[in-house]
């Protein structure tokens, strides 16, 4: 991402020489990015380029080996409650109770995130991802695509300000992809503060449908960036 003179309030995600090594080998090597609030940035790169490592550190699930990362001014390494309240995450693997129904799973997490009017919110989200009719079925019986739709709903449950998505298209059919695009775009416009999206993807042909910019990684380093849609 081009270095700009953004203020702290304008920056949703900021990393400074962020590094992560596994057994001495760098998976992420001095990555510095600045992503403005409200941007929808595609994280591109081949397998092993460091996309998941970057998203995992930003999600507070992995400690960096060096450098720093901030989300809306919060230091990621400190893993504060305030930070965790403002991020929504989709990881490579669904994060769902297999022997719960979607309603049971979302009700628990609505309680954890203290979502107001949770019943209404859950109904709205399950309807948006078009699995309301499956609300009482066990998640373990769902297809990968249905689980992914539920994960999209779950990541948006607490109205996060920053979405960190690791290959959110996995398992989705054309209809599912449309739902994903709509929710990413719709959510970006919901509320007063625009939602910032950083999403790793291998579907480069789809990036221009939703992204306002991209960051391309290779062997843990940034090799190309673009800020605006014109650069795509």
């Amino acid at each position, binding site marked *: 991402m081009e270095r700009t003179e953004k203020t702290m309030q304008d920056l949703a995600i900021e990393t400074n020489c962020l590094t992560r090594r596994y057994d001495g080998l760098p998976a992420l090597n001095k990555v510095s990015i600045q992503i403005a609030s409200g941007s929808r940035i595609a994280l591109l790169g081949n397998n092993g380029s460091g996309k998941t490592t970057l998203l995992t550190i930003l999600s507070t699930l992995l400690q960096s080996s060096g450098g720093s990362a901030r989300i809306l001014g919060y230091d990621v390494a400190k893993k504060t409650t305030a930070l965790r309240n403002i991020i929504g995450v989709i*990881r490579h*693997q669904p994060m769902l109770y297999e022997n719960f129904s979607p309603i049971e799973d979302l009700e628990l997490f609505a309680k*954890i995130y203290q979502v107001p009017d949770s019943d209404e919110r859950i109904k709205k989200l399950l309807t948006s991802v078009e699995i309301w009719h499956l609300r009482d079925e066990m998640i373990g019986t769902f297809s990968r695509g249905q689980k992914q739709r539920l994960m999209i709903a779950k990541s948006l449950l607490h109205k996060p300000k920053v979405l960190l998505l690791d290959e959110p298209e996995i398992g989705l059919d054309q209809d599912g992809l449309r739902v994903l695009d709509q929710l990413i775009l719709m959510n970006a416009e919901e509320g007063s503060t625009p939602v910032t999206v950083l999403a790793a993807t291998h579907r480069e042909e789809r990036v221009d449908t939703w992204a306002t910019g991209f960051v391309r990684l290779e062997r843990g380093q940034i090799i190309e960036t673009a800020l605006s849609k014109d650069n795509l």
Partner: protein
Amino acid sequence: MNLPTQLQIGGKLLNANLKQAWRDKTNWITAGMFAVTALLLYSFAFNLTTGLVRNLLPGVIWTVFLFSGIFATGQSFQHDRQNGILDALKISPIHPMTIYIAKTLANILMLLLIEFALLLGATILFSEPLFTPQLLLIVTIGTIGYTALSTLLSAINLDQNNGGLLLPVLALPLLVPLLIASVEATSASLQQEAGTAPWILLLSLFTIWSTAIATLMFPLAD
């Protein structure tokens, strides 16, 4: 997030853990089946008079409880990890200690259910009054102590990618003092000795120590 909110969320998470354990019975059925089989084997192996049974019962009971407990709790975080639930909880605003306490309490409740049923079974098999208030207290305190440690170790164990091998290797030496106190307290209770109270006190101290250490260490197992 303040304490009352954490307690409220902890209650919900405990309920979720119990519901999850009830619906996915794998660990608990394995533990229960092991316990029943072991108890039956012991009852046939020791064709003993009442007096001699009393000497052996504390060891029999706690050996069965220990290994069925390891079966039941050893993989307690495994499903949560496999389903990504542990990650979902870790990135949520819930405090790590709340995650640990809710899981440990669920394990304790499920184990106590199995153990009390076993005590009833052993009462019939060995013709010994094992379902006494004092013995139930000893079993409850001992179970809290070893479940606190084994649940913590099952969380640490996950990151080692070794198929559960570390749990017995790490847990058993740490549990020795607690198990000795449990066996001695049970023995004193069965023999109806006057010296049961000091052993119960020692067992309680070990339990408080292991529970406190495990609760404080869980966030570091991240």
